[in-house]
């Protein structure tokens, strides 16, 4: 066990338990603020734009996108992988830090998990939408049918993908919901509004806070956490097999599963950082999300960034070392140099170089810089997916088939739509769900003075 004296208190301000409940649940009782309404408005508009894009895609065809017979996957798959990556943060945060007994996580994990659920939801739109015949998407379910029965192709990474994402979405949503039950009960017990009482009461599922319930609750949390921990690793490993199982140069590499998982955690943590800075600023939760929290996340980002840099260099090294002319071409003449060089260097600089600034304490403690870096990381991670998906497809084996790809407005609209959905979901979360796990924070409140756990 670590010594809390050295690390200082996790929650500042020497708060009472009542104070904690009150401060965290206050947004739920207040009338929505102007910025919230404006945010909802903007995200609704983006969402509508996205729905328009989805409608056009389904009604007219994938031809409304910029993809072609050479580059079969475009923004849809880039965005899918990007969102899935972001969707890693919450669960990774909660689970790994839970397993590692990092108590400081409790201020952040709720928001991170909420983010996960919304991001994975956003991600799930794309694989469905990019299908030519989305109305037949159920063919991918392995179910007994009257066509033979005709089963799915268990060899296909897309099928694994489907299973992995579905499982991940279900488990992370359950885990998230489970964590909220005691807090719903808190709201139910403190609210004066009958409607809120009924609604939160429904979701609290009759929670009374007895010792027996807590015991089962923690047991279940660990079980679900255990499952989710495996899934965090598996889901992005499997997403990476969408690429790694193929024969495409730049895709066909054994590095991909760990590289993707690390990349996902990287982008997820960066997104957590972005959101935390915003929440903390808006709701003045500096006592709960302390500088130390952000400092910890920044340290993780530095470390993960090193892994990312190593992965990039490994990819390049292996391409050279293999002497495979197609791999060499893809890496050296179509990523580092060539038509897509800008995208490559955005990726490299944003992911591998800029986060290294956070080795310096001064920078880590400058929230503005940290905030900018976290956004740059997500930009860089988007370009990483762009590099992987587009450059390999655009120029692979037969130069006669090489083709360019650029997105159409419909594709961009769908992406903006998912940003809208994400913002919409997160804003709802701010307003209606305690954004910090009250009961967990209460547990770590007095860690400094009260060494009993």
């Amino acid at each position: 066990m670590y010594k809390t004296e050295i690390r200082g208190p996790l929650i500042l301000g020497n708060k009472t338990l009542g104070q904690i409940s009150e401060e965290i649940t206050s947004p739920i009782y207040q009338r929505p603020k102007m910025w919230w309404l404006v945010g909802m408005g903007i995200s609704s508009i983006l969402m509508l734009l996205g729905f328009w894009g989805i409608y056009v895609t389904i009604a007219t065809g994938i031809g409304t996108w910029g993809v072609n017979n050479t580059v079969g996957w475009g923004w849809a798959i880039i965005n899918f992988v990007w969102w899935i990556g972001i969707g890693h943060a919450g669960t990774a945060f909660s689970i790994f830090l839970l397993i590692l007994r990092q108590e400081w996580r409790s201020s952040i994990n709720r928001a991170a998990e909420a983010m996960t659920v919304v991001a994975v939801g956003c991600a799930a739109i794309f694989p469905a939408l990019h299908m030519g015949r989305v109305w037949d998407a159920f063919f991918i379910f392995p179910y007994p049918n009257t066509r033979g029965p005709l089963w799915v192709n268990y060899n296909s990474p897309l099928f694994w993908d489907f299973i992995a994402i579905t499982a991940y979405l279900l488990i992370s949503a359950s885990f998230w919901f489970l964590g909220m039950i005691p807090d719903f009960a808190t709201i139910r017990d403190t609210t004066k509004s009958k409607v809120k009482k009924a609604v939160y009461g429904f979701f609290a599922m009759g929670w009374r806070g007895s010792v027996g319930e807590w015991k089962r609750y923690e047991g279940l949390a660990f079980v679900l956490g255990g499952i989710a921990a495996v899934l965090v690793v598996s889901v992005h490993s499997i997403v990476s097999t969408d690429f790694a199982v193929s024969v495409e140069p730049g895709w066909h590499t054994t590095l991909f599963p760990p590289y993707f998982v690390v990349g996902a955690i990287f982008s997820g943590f960066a997104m957590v950082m972005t959101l935390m800075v915003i929440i903390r600023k808006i709701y003045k939760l500096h006592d709960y999300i302390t500088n130390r929290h952000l400092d910890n996340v920044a340290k993780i980002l530095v470390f993960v960034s090193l892994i990312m840099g190593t992965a990039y260099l490994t990819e390049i090294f292996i391409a050279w070392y293999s002497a495979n002319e197609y791999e060499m071409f893809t890496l050296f003449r179509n990523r580092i140099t060539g038509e897509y060089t800008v995208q490559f260097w955005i990726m490299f600089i944003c992911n591998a170089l800029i986060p290294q600034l956070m080795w310096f304490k001064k920078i880590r403690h400058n929230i503005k810089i940290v905030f900018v870096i976290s956004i740059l990381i997500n930009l860089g991670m988007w370009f990483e997916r762009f590099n992987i998906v587009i450059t390999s497809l655009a120029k692979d084996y037969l130069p006669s088939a090489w083709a360019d790809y650029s997105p159409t407005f419909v594709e961009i609209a769908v992406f903006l739509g998912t940003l809208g959905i994400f913002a919409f979901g997160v804003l709802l979360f701010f307003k209606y769900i305690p954004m910090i796990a009250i009961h967990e924070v209460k547990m770590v409140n007095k860690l400094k003075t009260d060494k009993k756990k």
Partner: protein
Amino acid sequence: MEKYWRSLDEYKNGPDDQTEKVVEEEQKNLVLDLASDKIAGVSASRRDFLKLVGFSFATAAITSSCEKPVQKAIPYLVKPEEITPGKSSYYATSFFDGTEYCSVVAKVRDGRPIKIEANELAPVSGGGTSARVQASVLELYDQARLKGPAKGSNGATWEEIDELVVRTLRNPTPGRKVLLTSTIISPTTKKIINDLQSTYPELEWIVYDEVSSAAIRDAHQEVFGKNMIPGYHFDKADYILSFDADFLGTWLSPVEFAAGYAKKREVTKERPEMSKHVQFESGYSITGANADDRHPVTPAKSKAILAKIYNGVASRQGIAGLSAPECDVEVEDIVADLLRHQAASIIISGSNDQEMQLMVAGLNAMLGNYGATLDMNRTMNIRQGSDKDFAALRSSLKNNGVSLLIMHNVNPVFSDPDGDDFGYAINAAALSVYIGHSFSETAKNSQYVAPDHHYLEAWGDAAPVKGTFCLQQPTINPLYNTRSFQDSLLKWNGAEETVYDAIKAYWEENIYPLSGAAMSFTDWWNTQLQQGAFIVGGNPSISYEPDLSAIALQSAGETAGMALTLYTSVGIVDGRHANNPWLQELPDPVTKVCWDNYLAVSVDDAREMELKDEDVVTVNGLRIPVLVQPGQAKGTCSLAVGYGRTVSGKVGDNVGLNAFGLVTEKNGFRSYTVEGIVIEKTGDTYPLARTQTHHTMEDRPIVRETTLEAYKKDPNAGNHFHLDAEAHHYSLYPETNFDGYHWGLAIDLNKCVGCNNCVVSCIAENNIATVGKEEVKNRRIMHWLRIDRYYSEDVNNPKSYLQPVMCQHCDHAPCENVCPVAATMHSSEGLNQVAYVRCIGTKYCINNCPYRVRRFNWFKYVNNDDFNFHLNDDTSKMVLNPDVTVRSRGVVEKCSFCVQRIQEKKLEAKLEGRSLEDGEVQPACVQSCPTNALVFGDMNNKEAKVTKHIQNERNYHLLEQLHTLPSVGYLTKVRNVEGKDEDDEDHHTVSHS
């Protein structure tokens, strides 16, 4: 066993099975009983209620939502003799569109022709077809066809036209009475015209070719005293010297020439010999792409070189030379080669310049090629047009000197440089009648339109080459109120007979006696009709003495400024097929551009003028986009004619620009070379649709090449990479065994000339959608078979490498294992198949196909006004092959090796209780290949041709290092060039990725 009982009764009598069974049955049928009154006595449970509700909802849902639109198929009450639903009939007939001849077999399904196949018995076209011929079936169903007689934009009756024409013919009016036709090769039609002329002696007959070869005829007139185009036997030519003649693409009779040419390009270990082909040209033609030595030169330089060669040969033979201009090009090697190949070479020129053709004729005569490679007996009947006669007609028209103008199958309003004036003139003539099968600029300007049949609806005959007679028979009843050209003429001549009677009579009288057949005429006629073609044997050997004195050179030498050469593109040719979407979307075999014409400019000139692709320039007033073309001769630019039709139909209108306006006249001949043109930049750009945008192989072993010399020493020359790949041929998994058939395709890259025939044949067979320029530009062309073209390094004169690529039917197919729903899978015969109904369109297979041959249906291409081509109207859709599914939006498609043909032949063989013979199954691309470069068959059959090809040392598989085990093999390209041992692929090492 203990006995249990419920009551004493039961104890005594045993259990009452009957009643229990009844109860059970009733319970089983409860759902149905619920609805009846029977249930009244029983207490209905909640479960019963739910059952009933569920049942009624399900029934309601099924009956209301699963309704499919009803389509009624009405069966024949009395079955026509020749139509068996679901079975195709084949009729031998002849294609001739005024410029190109081909013997064909029309595949007729349920009464409608759906595919043109090559006639393997054909003497001229030699079992092959061209892209134009393949696409011609679609024109039968074209919506732009003339559907009935018309006066201007109003309807007219046949009687009205007949009466008017006959009255004008009879009346001795001042002014010329002219019948203007395209070249007519039908002996019966000629007789009908001659008969008409003898009835009306004032009627003149003028033949007009949109793209003229009159200079060839004229040169032979001058040299041999005989107006002719000799027969060209490329199959006998060991040395081919061509000046701007695109004889594998569009020049004279490309199908025939390609077949002959390919025979001399077949290289085997036993006979490592092939012809040598030297091409001088300004633009980059498909013929140039096949040449062993290609020299980009300006037209003027071309002439100087030809003169120098002429003089070189003449001086060796002690014949007087010409006063030729200075020329710095070294021709000694060529002269020596020509002298070595006397009577075994061919010299040709595609120019319509009289002096060029005179020198060509003289050179061929000096080398003794006439009678050997050039046939003076079986001369060609095509291109009979006379530029001088037409020019005279044009001037009399302008001076209102024409009282009757009957035009058949010509489009001078489009193709004459003064087309617009010509249009006004024919409108102003006393009477102008247009006879043709589709709408055109000329038809629009004519006073009357008398629509002709499409060739698939009409009787006819043809003598493409002297002494060769072919029949043309209808394969469908005329779709519209049309009348054949010959019938119209017969009618105007007051004859009672129809064209059928006339042909039969002509053949009985003139051709049947020549055959010396023992059978009766009727039997003989039926046989000929079935075979489609017939050669008269035992021609007297005619020869003409050359008179070289007529050959002279007046104008030669370099001229100032740029030279523009006008050429005909492989798809559109002279524009007569412009409304055909298959041909419009056919990429040019060299530039890979479709849906437009463009000004090809050399790399050097582009650099000097600061031009790049898609810049718009003006050339003598014509605004045209530029394409920077490697291998274009410096100081020249090329532009295709035939584009820019304004009255052709929904597809062809305003595609590209009409370059016929730039044609000039020189010594009475149409000249397709324009000297001293001025190119001005406009600053605008115009997008061009290209199906290939990267043009080099990036040093990858994709098309493998060697030289003849290297091949003689080592049959594996240029293909050592294959040995290396084979040596690494191992797998963790057990190899699949194909017990029955294992289909394979072999492609001889040395015989493939890249003519694009297979591309269109595949489109026609497999119902492939046309997507339009915008979508081609978006790289979404649907062609299942494409011909890749790569250039070598030298941008000023790159070598070209052509390679047909279709689905390789890999036995370790990367596409198959990634499909999540198993929509694409391997058949037990080695075919890679797609189940369209199962496909959900993830496109993963497209990404994972290293050959990129899979095509996605990005939109709904059928019944969609955004794709207003042949799949958007009911008539055009009659061309669809009922054996092949029309794909819906959102599914992936690709080459199936024509699985429908395999299946058809397998069933036939099964019914006859035998196994398939080699060569029995022929996919569409293989069937009509003019050069037999494609060979299809069962690789399990050791004796099959395809197996022999695959075992050939020259065979390799595309990207074989990936271990995809393709079923398609390629034979290395062999070039007949001097020296250098081309093993430069060997620096590639096999790397398994």
